[in-house]
């Protein structure tokens, strides 16, 4: 039996949850349960009604309003102990990062996070995940009693391939086994930080700079390249963390998601947190001295070399045209 822990976003199924359903369906024909948590009587996303799963379970309790992590862990932990699935899959979302490691530790069962592929060999699940911020891939296996738990990297499975069916799966609303002692977190409503001044999502061309620039004083080189291309300047996380560029220039999972016609990544290694924010660009150019940098995996054009030589040469070439 496989359980997919699902999340909702704006009353819809989270795209990552749909990807996890597709992954579970492709992995095994076993019984598949989609699990949700929340307030008693809460709506179940309409999308769920057409999914080819055996059951939908919603663990419900007044204390699960807003799905506080400690309450959700206790509710899911007790229920998973009861149903004892072989595998628990969920999307590697920010919420999952808060909930699932604690759930695995509560159950005393192994958890493999941020998987990009999975397969079954001789009855054992084999998980693929990336190491060293995407530079290498590892195949991993889990030992010991089930359930085993895994989170899946966003975009690694195709949510649109999830099998559908015409008759809706049975929905079971189950009272969650939690008490007020289990919920010690007090959560304020989510909010967006100070208004972003730069809307990179509207930019046609973006020159993005990463750690390879080494020093804030070198940023003028990137500004010249951006000017030569008529591009906006963006950055990977470390540049904004250092305060070299404002946070609203950040592209990636914690910044903006952009889809320009041209994205030039300069001195950016291509850690997955950055790549998720820019892989939709139409044309991707990577300039990096490390030939093994993951950015070259997704680039259309790559130049392996010292950015302090390549970028001035590129500015000159663009200005000559």
């Amino acid at each position, binding site marked *: 039996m496989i359980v997919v822990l699902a999340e909702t976003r704006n009353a819809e199924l989270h795209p990552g949850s749909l990807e996890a359903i597709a992954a579970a369906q492709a992995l095994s024909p076993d019984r598949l349960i989609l699990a949700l948590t929340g307030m008693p009587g809460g709506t179940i996303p309409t999308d769920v009604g057409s999914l080819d799963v055996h059951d939908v379970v919603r663990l419900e309790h007044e204390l699960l309003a807003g799905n506080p*992590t*400690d309450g959700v862990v206790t509710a899911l932990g007790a229920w998973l102990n009861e149903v004892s699935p072989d595998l628990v899959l969920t999307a590697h*979302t*920010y*919420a999952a*990062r*808060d909930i699932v*490691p*604690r759930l*695995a*530790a509560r159950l005393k*069962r*192994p958890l*493999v*996070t*941020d998987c990009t592929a999975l397969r079954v060999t001789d009855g054992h699940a084999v998980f693929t995940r*990336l*190491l*060293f*911020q995407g530079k*290498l*891939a*590892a*195949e*991993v296996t*889990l*030992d010991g009693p089930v359930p085993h738990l895994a989170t899946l990297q966003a975009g690694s499975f195709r949510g649109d391939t999830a099998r559908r069916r015409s008759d809706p799966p049975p929905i079971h609303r189950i009272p969650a086994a939690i008490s007020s002692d289990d919920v*010690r*977190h*007090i959560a*304020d409503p*989510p*909010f*967006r*930080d100070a208004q972003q001044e730069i809307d990179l999502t509207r930019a046609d*061309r973006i020159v993005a700079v990463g750690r390879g620039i080494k020093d804030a004083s070198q940023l003028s080189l990137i500004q010249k390249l951006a000017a030569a*291309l008529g591009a906006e300047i963006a950055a990977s996380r470390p540049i904004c*963390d250092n305060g070299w560029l404002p946070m609203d220039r950040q592209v990636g*999972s*914690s910044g903006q*998601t952009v889809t320009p*016609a*041209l994205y030039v990544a300069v001195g950016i290694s291509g850690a997955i947190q950055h790549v998720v924010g820019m892989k939709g660009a*139409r*044309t991707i*150019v990577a300039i990096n001295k*490390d030939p*093994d940098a*993951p950015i070259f*995996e*997704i*680039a*259309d*054009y790559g*130049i392996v070399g010292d950015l302090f030589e*390549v970028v*001035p*040469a590129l500015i000159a*070439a663009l200005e000559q*045209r």
Partner: protein
Amino acid sequence: MLIAVCIKQVPSPESRVRVNAAGTWIREEDVSWTLNEPDAYALEEALRLKETHGGEVIVISAGPARVATVLREALARGADRAVHVVNDQPESAADPQVTATMLAEVLADAGADLVLTGLQSDDYGFAQVGVALAEQLGISHATIVMNVEIGDGRVRVKRELEGGMFQWLTMPLPAALTIQSGINQLRYATLRGIMAAKKKELRTIPAPRVAPSQRILNVSPVSRRTGTRLLDGTPAEAAATLASLLSQRDGGQVIK
């Protein structure tokens, strides 16, 4: 207030990591080692909280002998004492719950009010240890933290959510927090700090033997997408080729 910071030594981001002959891990002799970046921010946050609220900062790391370097560095930056859980079984590092158990053994005795660590490591990138640690210690936790406020026996944190959203959470102390890079501006060790660190306590304890339940079967380079065209030649040649390719791409719409 006692603040414990769990830190990890990882290959530096500039290191070229190569697969070992057995195809099971990297050639560790090729890489230079550094303090995991998110852990550096966790340490900095601990030092700032100590400066505001008083108390003591203890740093803990599990790993082989080389790990002492990052503990010394943390002492030089201002931590008060260090504990090195000496673990010579590299295979156990592949299971984050084992690492959490090793750290929890030290922390259960330490009685820390606050446990900080980076949100994930730059090597394995599990993003599990800080959270599993909280469960093993039976204390509250929050992940991907961008702001920490302490008061009235509670901690209020600003947590990063997806898509540029944030949320404030309040929970009782003790608590474990996983810290996001960029929460503060890092300080570096001064010569005075380095000298002072020599007199600070660095205790070593043997790692408990815990069987891992997560194993790496093999490690391989990530396969290159066939669509990538690498441009050869001198920087000037490659740049000229690129400018020419871009001006022709998508019917000349990519660049003007």
